């Protein structure tokens, strides 16, 4: 049975990575609600301009693509100050109520990533009530000029709220200037927009295929869940949207009434600073020694080659990469998608191609966790433990997130870490604890599920500067080869958290209900 989602009820940022739809620039603005009633009026006024997920075009049931988009989300404190009924508030998840800052020990936000080092807006959040972050508004635009138009519109709306909402300043920009907003934009290369982040990796490949959203049967290959017969199926809608059946066949826990929750979701907003100088120096140093050279090593960090995202499981060395590149150049959009996303780890269970600590294998192991050691095999081998689990991807399918966001800042001097450059990542999921936090804690900052002890994910791991807890990663080799594995030693902290929080992204219906104060769980 084909499921159809109410695209007019779901906010557009939930289902669309705007960067891929011709919006290379965006601005994230955060507000404080000073007056419940006026605040609700503001939400009501903004809601009229909020971009939905409806199909863009000139056809029936379509709307023209806007020049800029508007989306809105709320923290727990925000919903409270907008005077949602207590009986509704207690239905939100405890980690959402606690907020990202209070979850620092779970998330590994320590050392240079600890809240004391966050941007002022996030450092001051949840300390005094007047500085609490309540509302998130994102503006995505076709051009910088149009982005300014959208911001002027928003400033007008804030002004018109008559003190109902206050803009919170405190985002660090170029030269540590304190900004009223967080700007993000695609990274340019030779005057052309790219899909890369500041370390040089093509990013944003492999967004999950969600039931009800994916009309194209090709799209699900490598993006959905891997089935026992080798086929792929879309992930249940309820993994990403409240009020829909999830992978356990139930409605995910959500606040009452159902109209408040349905077609809404939770969003994790995280500003991640990238230490480009440290990254370059570390890559150069190890690139000198690593068999296969620097670019292959860079690919081993992530599981994909930097220049075009070619997955290592398909292109494990330079020769196969050349062949892959030729195929990619000749392919149409659908073919490119399949080349980049449609793969499994079935032929790489020992990690000889894509190491176990590579970014991609850690954040989405696909079916590779259904694995075991066979004492009859060559030492150093692991193999598929066929039929051990309910489905091959059982341990992965309920840990997926939709990833949104764009890089921020420019790298003006690659020899310095302290410039204004990084990415703002937004992850959408129905259960922050089960999905985002689990991946962050267990798969990024820890390695037991990968039989790697405390070895962390190479790129995002919260690598310690303390010698006693030095971080390493093993770059595995073919157990039947005569090579030794390569050890990445004393991995430095490459990425640092600079702030963020947990938000609730309501449906359009829920937005109108929140605005008019008619949410009633009785």
């Amino acid at each position: 049975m084909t499921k159809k989602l109410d695209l007019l009820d779901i906010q557009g940022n939930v289902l669309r990575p705007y960067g891929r739809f011709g919006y290379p620039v965006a601005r994230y603005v955060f507000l404080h609600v000073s007056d419940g009633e006026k605040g609700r009026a503001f939400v009501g006024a903004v809601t009229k301009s909020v971009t939905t997920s409806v199909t863009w075009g000139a056809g029936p049931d379509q709307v023209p693509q806007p020049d800029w988009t508007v989306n809105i989300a709320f923290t727990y404190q925000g919903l409270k100050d907008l005077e949602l009924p207590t009986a509704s508030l207690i239905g939100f998840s405890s980690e959402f109520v606690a907020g990202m800052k209070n979850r620092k020990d779970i998330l590994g936000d320590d050392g240079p990533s600890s809240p004391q080092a966050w941007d002022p807006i996030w450092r001051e959040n949840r300390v005094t009530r007047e500085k609490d972050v309540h509302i998130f508004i994102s503006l995505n635009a076709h051009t910088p000029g149009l982005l300014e138009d959208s911001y002027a519109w928003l400033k007008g709306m804030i002004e018109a709220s008559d003190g109902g909402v206050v803009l919170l300043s405190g985002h660090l920009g170029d030269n540590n200037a304190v900004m009223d907003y967080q700007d993000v934009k695609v990274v340019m290369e030779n005057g052309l927009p790219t899909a890369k982040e500041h370390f040089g990796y093509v990013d944003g490949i492999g967004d999950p295929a969600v039931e009800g959203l994916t009309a194209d049967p090709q799209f699900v290959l490598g993006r959905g869940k891997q089935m026992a017969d080798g086929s792929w199926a879309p992930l249940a809608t309820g993994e990403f949207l409240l009020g829909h059946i999830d992978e356990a066949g139930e409605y995910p826990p959500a606040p009452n009434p159902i109209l408040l929750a349905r077609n809404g979701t939770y969003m994790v907003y995280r500003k991640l600073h990238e230490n480009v100088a440290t990254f370059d120096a570390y890559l150069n140093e190890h690139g000198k020694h690593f068999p296969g050279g620097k670019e292959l090593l860079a690919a081993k960090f992530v599981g994909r080659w930097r220049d075009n995202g070619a997955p290592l499981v398909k292109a494990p060395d330079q020769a196969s990469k050349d062949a892959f590149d030729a195929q990619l150049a000749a392919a149409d959009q659908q073919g490119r998608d399949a080349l980049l996303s449609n793969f499994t780890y079935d032929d790489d269970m020992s990690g000889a191609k894509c190491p176990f600590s590579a970014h991609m294998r850690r954040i989405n192991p696909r079916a590779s966790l259904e694995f075991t050691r066979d004492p009859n095999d060559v030492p150093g081998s692991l193999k598929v433990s066929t039929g051990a689990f309910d489905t091959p991807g059982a341990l992965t399918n309920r840990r997926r997130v939709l990833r949104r966001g764009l890089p921020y800042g420019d790298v003006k001097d690659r020899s310095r870490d302290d410039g204004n450059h990084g990415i703002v990542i937004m992850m959408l999921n129905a259960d922050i604890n089960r999905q985002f936090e689990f991946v962050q804690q267990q798969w990024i900052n820890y390695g037991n599920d990968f039989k790697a002890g405390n070895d962390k994910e190479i790129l995002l791991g919260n690598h310690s500067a303390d010698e006693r807890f030095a971080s390493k990663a093993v770059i595995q080799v073919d157990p039947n080869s005569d090579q030794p594995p390569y050890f990445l030693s004393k991995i430095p902290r490459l990425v640092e958290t600079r702030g963020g929080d947990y938000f609730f992204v309501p449906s359009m219906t829920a937005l109108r209900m929140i605005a008019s104060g008619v949410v009633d769980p009785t």
Partner: protein
Amino acid sequence: MSNVAGKSYAMNVITPVRSHLAWVNKVIFWTALKLPSTLKGLITLSLIHYARWVIIGKHQFPHLAPEQPKEALSYSYMLFFSNFNGSWDQYVDSFTFAIPSGLDMFWKWNIRYPKSVALTPFHKYIQYNQIETLHYYNGYPLATSNDVKSAKTVKDALIAFDQTAHEGTDATFLKRYHTLLRGLQHDLGDMYPTPIVSMSAYQVERRTRWHASQLQANPLKRGQQ
């Protein structure tokens, strides 16, 4: 209370079984013991150090002294004890995702068992029947079940390698050494005191501060680290 000791979580669950059906459970456990394939999912998950199921007949609660009142129960009880790696929900979730039919096979003879899928009723059932541990001791708090197993692999391989470490040229030593490392490429993960599974940042900080102050006040003797 302390359900957590290092990287291990202690779960205790007690559930009623109809006395006349307790034997069915016993047969299933016996089969599991004789047919290792029934435990394949559990072994592949590799999150458990040790787990046990104890069925207490309704007349079998220990009676130690004449003044102790005799129990008069309607049901027999199944006690489940597990030592697993991860937090409560991480563990329960991984098990229901990976081996729901295995869980159902062991528990479906128990009264009002809801089945392991959907997740929320199963969570509720365990919470309802769980008993918190008061004191939990772990002989190797820094290690997971995977670590313990790979440690044995490392130790055996190293002792075997050392038998011939003095033989041959430096070049053959290097070749053999590379073979040793390759064979151990999934066994050399570091063991550090993280991750924290206790949910309260405040409690975590308090415990860390407390241990630091204890250490300052009375530096540890060996055996107390």
